[in-house]
Structure formats: C-alpha cells, structure tokens
C-alpha cells in the first residue's frame, strides 16, 4: 500500500564533465521516501497487508551446538513479534520443505493470540534430521505467498549449512522464481554455511545476510529483522533507467546501506529503458544507488544525456525524473574531477571488493594475493574511516601499518572471523555520515 502522504524523491550526483573521446558516466542516485520512520503498525492497515514466512533449517547438522533448540526459540520469538493481522507461515527445511504451520492446504492465518500459540506449538516438536536443499524451501514460501493476498511479502531464512542436496542450478532457478515476489533476509548460524551462497539469495531477493556465530544471538536477531520488516510499508518501488542509443548500462548497484549488485536483475521496459526493482521501503528511509553508463562520446563542448532516472511506485505512478547531463571538455581539470558522492561509493565498492577477493585468495591458499588484497583493504578502510571494518580485518590479519596497507596473515585466524568480515564487507556508510 502506498500511503498517499508519502512522496519519493530521487536526487542525482555525477561527474558531469567527460574527457574528449570518453563516455563512462558514474552517477549516484539518492532515493528517499518522505515521512517519519515508524514501526509500521500505524501506517499499514487491512487484515492481510503483510505476509511473512519464517523458514528454519532443521537438517541433521542443526543438532550440534544446541542450534536446533536456539533456532526454535528464535522462530517462536519472531512469531511473537508479528504485528496483529500479519499473514504468516512457518516452514521447516531440510532436503525438502515442510510447511509446519498452518497445515498444508489450510488457509494462511493472520497473527493473533491463538494463531501465535498454535504456531509455537507446531515449532516446538521440530527435530534436526536430514539434508539441506534451500531451493525447495524458497519454492514452498513462493507457493504459499502466491496464494496469499498481501501488500508486502517477506521471508526470514535461517540455515547452518550449504545447499548440499540440490544442484546449484536448481537453487538458482528457485531464487529467480521468487525475485520481485518477496524479500528474504538470510541468516547463517555456525561456520559451515557459505557466505556467497546466502549472499546470492539475499541480493537477488533484496534482503540482508547475517552471521550469527553463537546460536544464543538468534532470538534478538530475528526480532530485529521482523521489526525492520514491519516498518517497510511502501512496497515495490522501481528505478526506471533510460539510456541513449548505443549506450550500455554497465552497473546498477545499491551503494548504501549496503553494496548490492542489481545490474543483472533489470527488466526491460522498452527499447532503451530498464526497470530495477528496489524493494519495499520504510517511510523516511534513504538508499543510495550507483549507476554506471557507457555512452558514445560527442564532440568536445557538446552536451548530452547519459541517462534519465525516474522512480516508479507500486501503482505504476512515475515520479522524480531527472536527466544525467554530461558535457565533453578538453579541460583536464574538469574531466578528472570526481564528484564527492561518486568518489565515496566507488571507494566503498573497492573496499568491499578487496576484502572479498582477499578472503577468496585466502580460502584458495594463495597467501601472496590474500596479503596484497587484504592490505589494500586495510589501507582503504583506514583512508575512509571505516574503523569497524579495520577492526574486523584485524581479526584476520595483523595490521602493521594501515596507512601503507602493510599486513601479515594471521595463521590462527578463525573461520567465524573470516565469515564475519566477509558478511559485513558489503555494509557501507552513507555519504556524509562517516
């Protein structure tokens, strides 16, 4: 439901001068929904305005470390946090999906005192057993959502392992089918899951990835996910990007609050226009996007549009159109200047990339490359004031001198620390908020 009081605005920042013969245009698009952040309860109404699926892994490995017990407590806590009237379902997943609440075939209930306790009663007897096929869990959530009438759809997915009992292509197909239908926040517990696998799911479904190293942290984490979800009352905002003939949209990425590549997820709207789903929004929320377009150059002194950006609301209304205007110049002072927002986010993308590549090299036993990449990451983090990232890097490498990027690999770095660094590498600081 789009509140008629809420307005969306898109503001663009770009390097407006291009050197002769070049055509790469970087722009940052800041999208803001007006209004005060709320817990959502006041602004969304109607019995089944929101639908939620709680998906918990109950594969055999969940037996370890009291994970199953903690996961059940977290799922119960999530059920407790649901707003009155939210349609919800609970799915237990192993090598197949089990709809444990409501019983398959029954209509999806909305949250109330009685449905919450019935759901918790269904969660309580779950036991860890079987394998892991995450695609089947997503398929089940999609099937349920397709038969549920709501304004926003969201899933929370908890797993402790990798997708072993399913081909990667099957998982990819399942994710693809869910795109645009619901958002999914993914949480990994323990250290046997694969960051890139869950990140792939979360990126495609516009959610977040989190590492819950200790199962005891699950309950609080589930609560915060559900609370954040309930604030998103403005569904299905799209970025509509026009690019001129001969131009290529090289990248569309969410840049803040986290780095998320949306380039491949565009849906053609017309010959030169592509829509990118930005997901659901909370009133007062702001996100930044980085767009890179390569367009054919014009003569020096000419002006051209590298692109046109607008927002499309759930009801199809277009709003906040702006043109990415560029001018070709032979003045190097102008063409080499990097706009501050663009510099900020390209720097953050570079930092995330250095961390991820460094960890990958570490994983592959290429310690030379890992040292170089993670050293570069330390230097970038120091320069940009990412002290949290620097601290996380410090758990994986000994940082001798952050300013020059001199680091040594820690022989005893724990897997959880590496995964934590990996997961958090995509989180960015908003421009001007460092």
């Amino acid at each position, binding site marked *: 439901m789009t509140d008629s009081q809420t307005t969306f605005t898109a503001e663009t920042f770009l390097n407006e001068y291009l050197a002769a013969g070049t055509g790469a245009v970087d722009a940052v698009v800041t999208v803001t929904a007006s209004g005060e952040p709320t817990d959502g309860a006041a602004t969304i109404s109607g019995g089944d305005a929101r639908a939620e699926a709680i998906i918990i892994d109950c594969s055999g490995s969940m037996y370890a470390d009291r994970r199953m017990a903690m996961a059940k407590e977290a799922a119960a806590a999530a059920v407790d946090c649901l707003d009155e009237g939210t349609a919800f379902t609970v799915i237990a997943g192993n090598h197949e999906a089990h709809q444990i609440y409501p019983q398959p075939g029954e209509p999806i209930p909305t949250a109330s005192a009685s449905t919450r306790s019935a759901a918790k009663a269904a969660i309580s007897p779950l036991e860890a057993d079987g394998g892991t096929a995450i695609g089947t869990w997503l398929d089940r959530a999609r099937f349920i959502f397709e038969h549920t009438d709501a304004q926003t759809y969201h899933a929370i997915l908890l797993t402790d392992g990798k997708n072993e009992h399913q081909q990667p292509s099957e998982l990819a197909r399942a994710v693809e089918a869910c795109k645009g239908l619901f958002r999914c926040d993914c949480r990994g517990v323990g250290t046997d899951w694969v960051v890139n696998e869950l990140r792939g799911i979360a990126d495609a479904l516009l959610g977040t990835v989190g590492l819950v190293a200790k199962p005891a942290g699950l309950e609080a984490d589930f609560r915060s996910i559900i609370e954040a979800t309930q604030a998103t009352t403005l569904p299905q905002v799209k970025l509509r990007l026009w690019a001129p003939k001969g131009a290529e949209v090289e990248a569309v990425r969410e840049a803040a609050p986290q780095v998320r590549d949306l380039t491949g997820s565009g849906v053609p709207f017309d010959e030169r226009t592509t829509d990118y789903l930005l997901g659901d929004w909370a009133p007062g929320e702001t996100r930044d996007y980085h767009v890179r377009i390569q*367009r054919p150059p*014009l003569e020096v002194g000419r002006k051209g549009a590298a692109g046109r950006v607008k927002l499309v609301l759930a009801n199809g209304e277009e709003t906040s159109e702006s043109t990415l205007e560029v001018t070709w110049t032979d003045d190097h002072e102008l063409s080499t200047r990097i706009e501050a927002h663009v510099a900020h986010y390209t720097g953050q993308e570079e930092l995330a990339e250095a961390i991820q590549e460094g960890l990958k090299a570490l994983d592959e036993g290429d310690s030379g490359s890992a040292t170089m990449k993670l050293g570069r990451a330390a230097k970038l983090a120091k320069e940009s004031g990412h002290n949290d990232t620097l601290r996380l890097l410090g758990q994986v490498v000994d940082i001798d001198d952050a300013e020059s990027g001199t680091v040594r690999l820690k022989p005893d770095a724990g897997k959880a620390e590496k995964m934590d660094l990996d997961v958090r590498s995509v989180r960015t600081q908003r421009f001007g908020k460092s």
Partner: protein
Amino acid sequence: MTAPATDPADVAMTPACPQCGEPLSSSQARFCEACGMAVVPETPPEKTPEATGRARDRTGKSCEECDGEIGDDGYCNTCGTAAPELADLEERGDAAAATHRGRRRARNQDATALATTAEGWPVLVVADGVSRSPNPDLAARYACDAAAGVLDGQPFTGETDLAGAVIAAQQAASDAPSHGDPSWTDDGSHPACTLVIAIATEDAVHAVSVGDSRAYLLCREPAGEWTATSLTSDHSAGHALTSWLGADGPAEADFARQPAAVGDVILACSDGLWNYAPDDAAFGQLVSGILGDADLNVHVRAAEACEQLVDWAIEQGGADNVSVGIAPLAPVAAVAPVGSASDPGEPDAGIRNHEDDEADEDLKEGDQ
C-alpha cells in the same frame, strides 16, 4: 546589536551570511554588511529569457544528430544529444544583444547588457569573463550591469560618462566573490573580465574598451556592401590580456569617438566572435553576408543579426563564448526622450524595460 524592525517575510526570504550568520541585505547581496565576507548570490543576477519576450520553445524540433524527438528535458529521446542551445537574447528598442556558451566552453562567462541614454541613444555593453580567474561569469555579469546602470536613462555627454561607467564596472567586477567557484581552485586570484561599451548618438559613435572585446562601426557602402571599422584596440599580447577589470587588474581603458551617420550601425562583441574574422576586412565581409543590403535605417533586425552572428561563430567551431550587441544610428526624430521628469507619461524605451533594471539597482546599493 539593534536591528531595525524588519518585515517577517523579508527575513524568511533573505539568506544568512555563511561566515557570521547575519542576514544579508537581499538575496542578491554580494557582501555581508556585518563581516564583509564576499557572498555568492544564490541566484546570480541573470537576464531571464522572459525578459527578451522571445519564444524559447523547442516543441517540434528534432535532434540535429539523429533526427530523433527532443524530450522535455531538452535531450534527444533516441541518442541523448542535447538540442542546440539558444543564445540568451535581449532586446531594447532597436538594439539587441545575444550571448551564447559556444561549443567548447563548459559555461558562458560572457555577459551583455543594453541601456538607453536620456537622449534615447542605444548603449551596448559586452563583458568577457577571464577563464583563468574565479567566477569569471559573475565578474562579467556584474561589470555589464554596473556599466549599463550608470549610463541608462542619463544624459550622455561623451568620454567622461564612459569613464564613469568603466569605473563603476571596475568596482563591480572587483566586488565579485573570489570563492565558491566549483570549477576553480582558490589560489588568491580574483574574478576578472573585459568590457566594451558602445554608444550610437545621431551623428557619432563612442566606444570604450578594457581588454580584447571590440566595438565596430559598420557602414553600408552605396554598392550594398558593409565595411567594418574597429573603434578600439585590443589590450592583449598574443592571447594574454594586458588590461582587464577586477581586483587584480591594471584596468587601462581605450576611448574612441568617430563621426557616423544615420543608417550606420554599432556592434560590440567578445573575441568569441571576432577571432573568426580578426581584421576589419574579414569582419566587414562577415557582416555583409549577414546584413545583406537591408536598409537598417528603417527597421534593424538587430536581434536576428545577433543570432545569426552567434550561429556563424558556433559553426566556425564555437571555441569560446560568443557575445554580440548591435544597434543602428537612428534619426533624432525617431526616438523619444527618455527618463526626463518633465515627460513622465511618455511610454518610452527606458520605462518599457524597467524590470531589467532591478539587478542594477541592487548592484548600486551594494557598491555603497
């Protein structure tokens, strides 16, 4: 400090000084009166297209690159090329002035202004902001407006009045802020510009120039061709200026007066035009091609001629900003006296353009 009672609406409209927070005297103020900080006006005084009364509509135009349709934002819906920019055109009576960014410069640092003396004589003012200085566009704008403001509606007696206009323009250019130019790294230098003023009385042309902008006397020969005579000499050595307006400037002015007759034309322009026709013979040919054998005595299509000269310079490459002003020498009878208190009801040229003068008023206040 005790502030005079102020209208609350004024307070809301007036920006505060970024340095000391005191409210500025107006949204166009160029200085904070409390601390003396130079301030870049939120909206630099600017001739709006409405002031020219000429349509600036691109509806129905197609893209010059690919013939595609031009969108509402002025860019081609197919290839994204900007529709050709139109010159900023100003008209006053039979005089006109046009200024254009050209093709290669990122912004237009030239400015033009028109004025009319108390006698009804047209005044052309062109200033060209010096690229190697901060806020050159503001220097040019301020200098033009100041010079035009001094001469407008006043009796014109000759060189002394031109000198007064140059002094006012020099002061205004010096007042242009040195900071806040997004395409300039502060290095302690100050805004600078050239200035040329040309006035056509009924029997002479007067000109003054600082820098390398020029004034020409254009005369139609019996055969229909036009000759161009440069009235001023350039203050430049190679491409470097030897005289300019601004706080750093050795502002040496070059004055000229030459007899002329009704039917002759004065022209003032920046080097963005004359660089493509640097000697008088070439300039005369250029003007002949544009004015043809039109009898400018009756109705100078000064506006059209200005636009055609701008277009021509852009076709030659448009390497610099292009500005040109044109006015005919009109017979005395054809012009009504302007701005005289004894003749308040006369709907004359000076009053017709009264709105244009607001920026000038602010400027004069700011100078005090």
